């Protein structure tokens, strides 16, 4: 046969075809024995139950970091909103009532449905106020709005990465940024609210 990619002549044993077949059967058979005898040797991670350890450099959902006094580090400089190629960061700024020389965000929303997780916002921030180190990649929701993460949620992630945007905002409507929630809150399945969380705490590098 002309199809001989190695360019090497086949040996007689190879040309019988059956002997290599037997060798290959033995090889796959060895894999079978190993897979059955040592379930931990399987390559599959049985995902929702078992999770792979996340790399510390993994770019997951964003969070906003806080200053030592509890206020957001963000100074609403708009660098991130400017650099964002998906134009998915919305910031509304105002004067800091305590220190009129400072600018603070009143609204800071990231539309994760449009975000392409490029990480430019993290690079651009002069204050190291925004990071993507939560390790959250299961971004799913029953309403699109729930994937527009507002400031309360983003800063809350700095404290507790396990909170979920929709659940958090609906449980704490007072903490939601103005205009975030519709007048009539969407009905939430109580089962979802009661759902236990099992995510590992994120890698924090303060």
């Amino acid at each position, binding site marked *: *046969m002309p199809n001989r990619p190695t360019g090497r002549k086949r040996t007689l044993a190879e040309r019988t075809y059956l002997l290599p077949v037997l060798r290959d*059967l033995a090889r796959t058979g060895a894999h*079978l024995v190993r*897979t059955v005898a040592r*379930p931990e040797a399987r390559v*599959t991670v*049985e995902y929702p139950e078992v999770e792979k350890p996340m790399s510390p450099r993994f770019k997951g959902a964003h969070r906003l970091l806080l200053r030592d006094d509890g206020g957001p580090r963000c100074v609403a400089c708009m660098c991130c909103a400017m650099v964002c190629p998906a134009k998915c960061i919305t910031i509304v700024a105002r004067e800091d009532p305590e220190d009129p020389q400072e600018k603070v965000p009143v609204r800071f929303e990231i539309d994760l449905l449009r975000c392409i997780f490029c990480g430019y916002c993290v690079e651009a921030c002069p204050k190291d106020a925004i990071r993507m180190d939560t390790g959250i990649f299961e971004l799913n929701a029953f309403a699109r709005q729930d994937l527009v993460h507002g400031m309360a949620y983003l800063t809350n992630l700095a404290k507790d990465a396990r909170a979920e945007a929709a659940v958090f905002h609906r449980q704490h409507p007072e903490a939601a940024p103005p205009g975030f929630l519709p007048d009539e809150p969407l009905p939430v399945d109580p089962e979802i609210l009661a759902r236990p969380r099992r995510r590992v705490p994120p890698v924090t590098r303060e």
Partner: protein
Amino acid sequence: MSPGLQVLVVAAKIVFVLGFVLGLLPVVIWMERKGAAFLQDRPGPNRAGVLGIRASGALHAVADVIKLVFKEDVVPSGVERGWWALAPLVGLTTALVTFGFVPFGDEIRIAGQSVRLQVVDAEGGALFVLAFTSLSVYGTMLAGWASNNKFSLLGGLRASAQTVSYELAMGLTFVSVLLVYGTLALDRIVEAQAGAPWHWGVAQGFGIVGVPAFVLFFVAVFAETNRVPFDLPEGEAELVGGFHTEYSSLRFALFFMGEYAALVVSSAVVTTFFFGGWQVPFLDGTALRLHAGAVLAAVGIAVGIGASGGAVLALRARRRRFYRALLPADPRRREPLFWAVVWTVAALGGLGLAVAGLVDLPARVPWGPGAVAIMAQFGAFTVKTLFGCWCFVWVRWTLPRFRYDQIMDLGWRRLVPLALALVGLTAVWVVARETWGGG
């Protein structure tokens, strides 16, 4: 035997054989999926479950059936309606009919009458097997032609060309087998293989005749059943779904079942010709009845040891990362315990069998030895057939698919001359055996 009783016996045998083949189908499908996964270092299907008991993915077959039943039955426009509807039935029917010729146990005596455990004890059984296995290609061809689809047509064409090519090698190997046994009746072929494994067909002529015959036959069977490495008719990389592209819902399920029924039946036929059919190694029917107690005890002990091992493994599974990561409310948490209990019950059953065998219970009831013998023989047949199916699975997930010209080359230029040479060799050996009484 009165005609009424005869009809009843035949009907019972038919129902039994149908139940056997159709009952093995989910087992073989499960074996295929799980075997494929294990050969590739994967855990395989393991999500479908009832109350947290997932049975290693065995329930996926049930889920599949439910899904296929509720799917829409799409009839594409332009199909040859009648032939198109007939095609999926052909494969399954021919496979089931073929099984009717395969003996699955020794003669038994019911009410003073001897009953052969074979639906049709035809004198020319082997020829019928050959005929019906080749008929199955009509299903593929009809599907390909009637679907009004180029890909289906190509798949059907490939199937017919391939089957015709391998039919020849298969028929010649049949000649060799028949020369050795001197009969076409499958029950007598099995009877000739009684006793030790070196009386089996595969060991004929000290293996010089038997092994090549087996290999040639096995390769031809792969091509006949369109299994990898010869599954070109449905080569999905080139032909979408091949001949069953246009079939959905239950019609597709029929093709699927037909494929696996053909697998079971081919493996039963290979067992019958080369691996002693229902013969228990080293123990022919008389010996089985004589040592019924010992046989029962041996089976019981084997079951007991195996099931105890299963129970230990089931309990050890709790240490796996998967089970440790489950939430407290997850019903799958009780799975290891459930299987441990099941295996323990099985082990106790094995213990019961062993005790019954050791006190020689079968000898104390008139039908005891016969019942043990028939169960042992049928069990041997089932185990051999399932192992044959496993070999099909094993090969499928080890070898890549052949190219079309390679298949034709292998069939016509390698297998046919080899099979011809084998017939000559067999003839020489048969004459030598008759002359010098060897063998």
